[in-house]
């Protein structure tokens, strides 16, 4: 059974239709890549899944339960966590405190003391490689550090499903490879299902078990990375030109 399924979700912002009936399943234990051109509705979909937006129609199911109207903090406590595309750390808190917040409020909500939360948070900082900076204010971190902190904060809630919204954007090639290793480690060691929004094709194709492609609020393809790479519709969307797309796919 799917860990999370999105069923025919429509989301409008005034006259703009960001999602036009998107359905997809996220299977337990997989890394699902979500790609698509700018404005195709990827982040909106994540916002619908986390509960920041309510869909105009359609359903979101998590572990067989309808969560379409569930508030965001409850969804987090159920096991859905996310990172933000533009990192949003709690600036004036230390790196450690940032993670303590999500440990205290996540799935262990109410069952963990502040001291225990700090210990758990330190373990998580170890995983993402931020231990050295734990006492620094989070605003002092650089771009990569902030991306890692986003991940640490999401992990703090002990999710079953973690959604990474462009966590590789703006990183240098060597930082990207480090990050990919961390993501794989999280999936393998912590058994967390991952939905990954990404623009870096080689990274997505490399790490994903399956890939879903959105364009203009619609799902246009779904399948194994190699199938997607050979999909003429996907190539057309990305190249904007059928001839070019054909050439690319043939090669």
């Amino acid at each position, binding site marked *: 059974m799917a860990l999370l399924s999105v069923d025919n979700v429509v989301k409008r912002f005034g006259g703009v239709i960001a999602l036009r009936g998107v359905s997809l399943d996220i299977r337990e234990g997989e890394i699902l890549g979500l790609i698509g051109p700018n404005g195709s509705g990827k982040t909106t979909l994540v916002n619908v899944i986390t509960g*920041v937006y309510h869909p105009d129609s359609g359903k979101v199911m998590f572990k067989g339960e309808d969560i379409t109207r569930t508030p965001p903090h409850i969804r987090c406590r159920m096991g859905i966590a996310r990172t933000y595309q533009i990192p949003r750390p709690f600036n004036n*808190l230390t790196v450690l405190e940032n993670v*303590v*917040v999500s440990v205290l*409020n996540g799935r262990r909500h109410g069952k963990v003391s502040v001291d225990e939360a700090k210990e758990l948070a330190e373990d998580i900082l170890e995983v993402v490689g931020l231990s050295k900076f734990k006492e620094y204010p989070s605003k002092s971190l650089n771009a990569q550090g902030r991306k890692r902190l986003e991940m640490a904060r999401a992990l703090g809630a002990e999710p079953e499903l973690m959604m990474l919204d462009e966590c590789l954007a703006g990183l240098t090639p060597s930082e990207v490879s480090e990050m990919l290793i961390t993501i794989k480690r999280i999936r393998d060691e912590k058994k967390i299902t991952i939905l990954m929004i990404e623009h870096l094709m080689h990274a997505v194709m490399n790490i994903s078990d399956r890939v879903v492609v959105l364009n203009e609020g619609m799902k246009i393809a779904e399948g194994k990375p190699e199938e997607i790479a050979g999909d003429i519709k996907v190539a057309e969307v990305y190249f904007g030109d059928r001839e070019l797309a054909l050439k690319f796919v043939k090669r």
Partner: protein
Amino acid sequence: MKRYLVFVVIYLILIALSLVSTAYLEVIYYILFLMVISQSLNILMGFGGLYNFGHAVFIGIGAYAFALLVVQGINPYISMIAGGVLSSVVALLIGMVTLRLRGPYFAICTLAIVPAIKYLIIGGKIAGGAAGIVLLRYLIEAYNPYILSYILLSLSIIITILTLKISTSPLGYSLKALREDHDAALTSGVDATRCRVIAFILSALFPGVAGGVVAFKIFWVMPETVIDLTWSVEAILIVLLGGSGTVTGPIIGALIYEVLKDLLMRYFPGLQLLIFGLLVVALISVAPEGIVGLLGNRFKKLRRILI
């Protein structure tokens, strides 16, 4: 123990000075009053980032509850506590409506609460309307300025301990997270409404009790004197001046605010507000994180005691 040095020193100085003369006692009474109202506001404003211009309403509610009970012949000290409890109940009601709003919208909404309650009492002729309730004959025998000041002292100490506890509690972390980034806090599992309502109720309790002390002190509650927007503004100013979100901040802030105000009144009568305003603008531009933040940045060694 060393961590609490600042609190111990300030409270000991205040107690010592209160015993010197009744003139000092008056000043200290007011400093302690400001400490109570600003530290209680700090829970909401410093940790939660919510500017509550309606803070003065809690003093008014406490004062009115106190007066109405004292007139019924109920012990004044019990009436003070009842005032605090009622104030928290009202905070729950106000909070459930206003705390849906964020940032500046919440601030503007709370700004309307003070005149709303004031003119509700005047226009509705509630509890004596504009004339209020005179308490002199009920309280004159029990009056003792030392007891009133020491009640404020105890309130101030209790609320400071409470604020210290909250600062490192799950509630404190959640409030700070909401202050820094509301949406990111929600998706990290923080129950915004619950945390903010609890903070609101706690921050209303102590000014409610202090309202009873004020009523006792002046023997008279009327809308114009006990529901005063100035108190809200003073509390916000003191929190900003001392250091928002720190526990020592409001204490140091209240002390400096009152001493400065008194000195200016004595040496520059008539010009005191102008000079005071300029000083505040200067101080906030030099030290946006308040006096505590400024000292902490300048003198790293002080950081351990300026909590």
